[in-house]
């Protein structure tokens, strides 16, 4: 790709617009994805049993709680560093399942929060779980704790807690950053069985290296949906699967489209280009670029060149050093 200071993305300026205007396509595409999710939630709610495969990490959860019970040491859970959002809710859903197991076996738990809103919700969800299990007398109000909302202060606090309480099983699920390895290392040193999942791709490798089982990326959402069987979660998961297929198909179609128009093995010359919606002959002879492809126009919502396969001999430029590659020689 030639680099031209004038052709950087910021050359197109969308003043005052609060999102990048890529034409009608982005809106329709987004709406289709939303429709996929909504449709599948509706299907799930109407009682249709939507299939979700059981991922291997789920067995590890039962095993970890079982071991903590045998050892009589607490189970420690951290729902990540982020504020209150969908990721935290999913993490707490998994923690509710863990807490349910712990409540049955009278195993102590500890939930460490880094956000005030998350702390409030976690407290409520954990208390509700004990109530549902008919073991409210086992619920310790100190089991859900707010440590700090500053990253490394939180890391220092939680690692101190892991060491002092000698946690036997630890669950790190949600958005983790640089503190992930500090937690995992500390828990490893106390011999805890660790199950982790970070929605941050960069932290997953550390969990893979230091933990016993890791739910990678979306497996985290799948686990939450599988455990709760809530129609909204199950429907969303299936809807997301459809969305992933659509995105993969779009990208693949784009790649094939680009491959076809650039002229495989020979190269093709652009004859017309579309600038700001207007089709005009190209100003200077040039080879067809991926940005001339229909699929790229569609996604970018802006101009590009149109090609004519029949015109293989472009007009020679005045520059005597210019030699088109491919079709020309």
């Amino acid at each position, binding site marked *: 790709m030639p*680099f031209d*200071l004038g052709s950087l*993305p*910021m050359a197109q*300026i969308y*003043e005052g*617009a609060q999102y990048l205007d890529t034409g009608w396509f982005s809106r329709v595409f987004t709406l289709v994805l939303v429709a996929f999710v909504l449709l599948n939630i509706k299907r799930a709610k109407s009682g249709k049993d939507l299939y979700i495969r059981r991922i291997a990490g789920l067995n590890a959860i039962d095993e970890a709680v079982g071991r903590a019970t045998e050892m009589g040491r607490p189970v420690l859970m951290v729902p990540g560093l982020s504020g209150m959002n969908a990721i935290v809710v999913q993490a707490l859903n998994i923690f509710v399942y863990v807490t349910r197991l712990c409540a049955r076996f009278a195993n102590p738990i500890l939930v460490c929060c880094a956000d005030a809103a998350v702390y409030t919700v976690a407290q409520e969800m954990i208390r509700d779980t004990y109530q549902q299990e008919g073991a409210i007398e086992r619920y310790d109000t100190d089991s859900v704790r707010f440590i700090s909302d500053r*990253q*490394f202060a939180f890391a220092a606090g939680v690692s101190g807690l892991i060491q002092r309480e000698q946690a036997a099983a630890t669950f790190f699920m949600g958005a983790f950053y640089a503190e992930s390895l500090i937690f995992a290392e500390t828990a490893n040193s106390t011999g805890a069985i660790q199950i982790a999942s970070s929605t*941050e791709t960069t932290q997953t490798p550390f969990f893979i290296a230091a933990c016993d089982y890791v739910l990678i990326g979306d497996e985290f959402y799948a686990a939450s949906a599988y455990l709760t069987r809530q129609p909204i979660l199950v429907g969303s998961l299936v809807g997301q699967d459809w969305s992933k297929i659509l995105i993969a198909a779009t990208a693949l179609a784009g790649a094939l489209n680009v491959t076809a128009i650039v002229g495989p093995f020979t190269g093709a010359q652009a004859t017309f280009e579309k600038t700001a919606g207007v089709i005009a002959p190209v100003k200077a002879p040039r080879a067809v670029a991926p940005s001339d492809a229909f699929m790229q126009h569609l996604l970018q919502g802006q101009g590009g060149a149109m090609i004519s396969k029949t015109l293989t001999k472009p007009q020679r430029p005045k520059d005597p050093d210019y030699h088109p590659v491919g079709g020309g020689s």
Partner: protein
Amino acid sequence: MATPDSSIGAKLQSLPRTLLYLILLLATSLPLIYGELAGGVSVPNQPLGAAVDFYAALMKIPPGKTVLLETDWTNSTRGENGGEFDAILRILMARGIKFAVFSTADPQAPQVAMDDIATINALRVQKGQKAYVRWTDWVNLGYFPNSEGTLNALAGNLATAFNGKKDVKPGGGLVDVFESPVLKGYTKLTDIPAVILVTASATSTVMIERLSGKVPLDFMVTGVMGPETQVYYSSKQLEGLVIGLKGVYDLETLMKQGLNGQGPDAVPSQKYAGLDVPPVNDNLGTGKGSAYYPTLHFALALLILAVIVGNVGMLLTRKRTAQ
């Protein structure tokens, strides 16, 4: 079967932690001290394309214009972000580009940034250069608690986003920042030639979501964020990108040698053929990148050695168990 404890394999796999920490301590301290005493050690370097783009982008901003400098790091990541921030300050100050500092990640970040600005300013004064004056050359907009809300507001209207923020005017107390020479006359985001983000947190993603395509973005991120941020650079959502210590060293190399220039040391770049980007002659000595980068090689060599020792130990143990 013999007890595995006494075998060489088992010993290699369970070297005492304290010993390993001690070796690491020496491996990271001795080269640093040597480098300082020897007045700097240089390592051959070919700057990466992303850092070259970053440098070229900054060097084309006209002097006197104002850039937004979002600083989302604290002393926890000083090793990487500190070097990045020093480098960006030196480039901006040497070129006479004004800047407005703000943070959307950590309340401590603006203070850390101000300490850094003071350090670079002290160095400039020491070398007989003009100090960069708060209020006339730069302003501190402070901390904004909600990254998404703040950057969304910024995308819509610069004046509204920073409305009501005050900074210290010499001899005039706290005055509205839009009265300052730094932001006077700036009303829209498009008036700003670039937004630079020095970060150790996910605010980079938020900025891509809110500002990409509306204003040139230049990021300086930590090594851990490198792989994920590289994607945005590859898809041209970012103009330039500096990643971790290698990025800092790249930038310092470019600052010292220039790009495609006349000098024998100039970094050649095919991409910028025909465009000479001069070095930054601020004469402030070597930066953190040049101080740390040679030492990193010792640490990495130690790591590779440890991985080999551990694996040899594991192979020996396995062989022994198989027998």
